[in-house]
């Protein structure tokens, strides 16, 4: 018993020295070879409208891709896409091409960016603070180019729902009034509890605490939620519980039975793009 007590006291005195969150981000190398030759012909873009740019986020440099006329930012609707947990924007170039042709060629401006540690963006994503700072760096640029709240549409895919949630709940310098949550996660606790089957909070392994349910309860704007019931990355039931706490001005959900986490590939571009376009235009 004395040995057990000694172990317990010793353990309490040891500080934690690792955090799971950084390791769970799948950031990696990128080539940023954004060309039409990698796109289906129907999603080709005017290559003169491809703009790779970078912004400062704290001590790090964040790379972003804008597809469209820069001058368009001051007058047109801009889609800000927060991508999922893949190595870089390279993985979402096809998505960019689709958005650049949504409603017609370059009808909307399109912006996406790599979080710290993804692609060429420097540093490491570590949690809510770094994600919020990266988001703010990009939105600050859009604001400087004249974007206003009534013309901003945020589309968040999977991991992108983590920075999108707090931003929608009031953390965005340009208030979000149209938000698409595609296959979002739910809470950091749910990830821990689904991994263990126990009521353990996420603070046992990470300081990255997120709660999209609370974020959605605090979000007053319009929301479209898209999810497949067979999603094995962002479980459907917990995402539903979180998203349905939304109490804003308009709510729409697009639920696809037996579809998985790669929702766009599962349901097809036509259905996917049509649903988002209808929501933007409503």
């Amino acid at each position: 018993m004395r040995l057990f007590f000694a172990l317990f006291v010793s353990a309490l005195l040891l500080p934690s020295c690792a955090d799971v969150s950084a390791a769970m981000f799948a950031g990696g190398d990128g080539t940023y070879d954004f060309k039409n030759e990698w796109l289906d012909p129907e999603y080709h873009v005017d290559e003169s409208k491809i703009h790779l740019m970078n912004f400062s986020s704290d001590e790090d440099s964040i790379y972003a891709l804008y597809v469209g006329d820069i001058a368009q930012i001051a007058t047109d609707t801009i889609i800000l896409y927060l991508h999922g947990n893949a190595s870089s924007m390279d993985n979402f170039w096809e998505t960019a091409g689709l958005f650049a042709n949504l409603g017609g060629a370059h009808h909307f401006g399109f912006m996406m960016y790599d979080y710290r540690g993804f692609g060429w963006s420097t540093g490491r994503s570590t949690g809510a603070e770094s994600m919020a700072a990266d988001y703010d760096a990009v939105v600050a640029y859009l604001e400087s180019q004249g974007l206003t709240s009534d013309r901003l549409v945020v589309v968040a895919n999977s991991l992108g729902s983590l920075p999108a949630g707090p931003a929608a709940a009031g953390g965005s310098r340009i208030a979000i009034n149209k938000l698409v949550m595609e296959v979002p996660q739910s809470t950091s606790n749910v990830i821990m509890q689904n991994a263990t089957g126990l009521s353990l909070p996420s603070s046992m392994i990470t300081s990255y605490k997120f709660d999209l349910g609370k974020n959605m309860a605090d979000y007053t704007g319009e929301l479209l939620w898209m999810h497949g019931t067979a999603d094995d990355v962002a479980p459907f039931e917990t995402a539903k519980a979180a998203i349905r706490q939304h109490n804003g001005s308009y709510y729409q959900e697009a639920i696809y039975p037996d579809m998985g986490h790669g929702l766009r590939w599962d349901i097809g571009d036509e259905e996917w793009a049509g649903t988002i376009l209808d929501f933007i235009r409503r």
Partner: protein
Amino acid sequence: MVRSILSLTVIFLASSCTPTKIIVPLEQGQWQVGLTQGRPQINDGFLPVIGGYAAKGMTETRTNYGGIQFSSLLLGAVQLEGGQVRTWIPQDGFKPGVSLSYGAQAFMSTRDYAFRFYPETGINAYWKKGPHILNTSANTWVDPTWFLADFNRGQIIAPSLSAGYRLRYKWIEAQVEYKMLNPIRELHIPQAYIPSTAGLGGRGVYYGIAINF
């Protein structure tokens, strides 16, 4: 990638299960101190995660033990366990002996001091011949704070089933154990695959090495 898999493995091990420490009670006054290496499977690989324990034979039929998971500590959770194993039915020839275990696991976050306490109980059937011990075991953790799980998705019990072999020879003991983890629940980690036994829960192989004195 290795870093990522390691962390996922640690998440899984830190909380789902620890290896069975004592199957057959020690001799009265005997101590056993050991290290365990848990190897729950995630994706296609196994990675080692380390724990330690100490046990003492209080009588010929009762052994107390306490342990710590070093890997949980690395990530910021103090995970301690303690309990007792006692002989219920002594082995009689080929008729297996049966021992009962009861104890608890305690977790505390070093970030926000969140605390969880999980009583556990188990039953072991064992065959001991000379230095060789074969066993099958059923164990369950009880979650008295299941209602704290987000979105009412908690469960009160978290069982495991296992089979193992131990070589207890004089001052040393070597252990290997195969476990089915929480077979009544679908375990899930984003962007990772958790292999199971017959589609139930998770699975893992655990090794241990201990000294007796």
